[in-house]
């Protein structure tokens, strides 16, 4: 099955981002395809490379970046990003900024969209 993911909450404060990541790992392990991951609302904070958590904790943006390196399309909503100061300068590698149209495309090209938010 082809699946896309919508992430609506930021890292660490809410579990949504971790749940999305764990869901994706489980889906990939089952042989599903992840068409793309779209970060919206506070979800755009997942994409900043400036985060620097304690070493014994997970590094959320690095984790997303590594997923992007496998070829999964990682997209941050430009309007939501502009509101929150997420620019190309602070973007983690393998993640790109684009518009909500990309979410529409992901929906068109997927069998399922799974939302992770509050």
């Amino acid at each position: 099955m082809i699946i896309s993911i919508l992430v609506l909450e930021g890292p660490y404060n809410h579990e949504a981002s971790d749940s999305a990541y764990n869901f994706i790992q489980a889906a990939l392990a089952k042989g599903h395809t992840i068409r793309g991951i779209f970060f919206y609302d506070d979800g755009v904070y997942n994409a900043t490379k400036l985060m620097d958590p304690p070493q014994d904790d997970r590094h959320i943006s690095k984790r997303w970046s590594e997923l992007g390196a496998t070829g999964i399309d990682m997209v941050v909503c430009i309007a939501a990003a502009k509101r929150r100061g997420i620019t190309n300068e602070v973007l983690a590698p393998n993640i790109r900024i684009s518009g909500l149209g990309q979410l529409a495309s992901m929906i068109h090209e997927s069998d399922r969209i799974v939302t992770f938010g509050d």
Partner: protein
Amino acid sequence: MAEKGKKVMVTVRKPPHGSIYVQESIEVMFIFATYEMDLSVVFLDDGVLALHAGQDTKGLGIKGFMASLGALVDWEVTNVYVDRQSLKDRGIAEDAIIAIGKDDDSGAPIRPKVLDTAQIAAMMTGQHSIVSF
């Protein structure tokens, strides 16, 4: 690869103003309406509070989105529904919800269509995708 024109539903379940969920869901509606998809929008649970008439966010110092909701029809977001039970649970009369546009000919206000939960559930089962806010 899936075909175009598939059925996509946006659900609004969060109360307005306390978070940005409702506001950014409206932006999704506006963008999706410009794509080839069979778009529907459903307000349910606390999301129905967004349709309560007479809201003014000036005192909160935030822009608010009531004008955007009032222009949904202008943006070709026309299949808009609200859950009857959610309205009832929150003491909102069905005829007290805001208009989302005006009829071109008569000028009569167009309001979200009130549906029973079972009707909404049936609509949900027919969707290709549901994007939940």
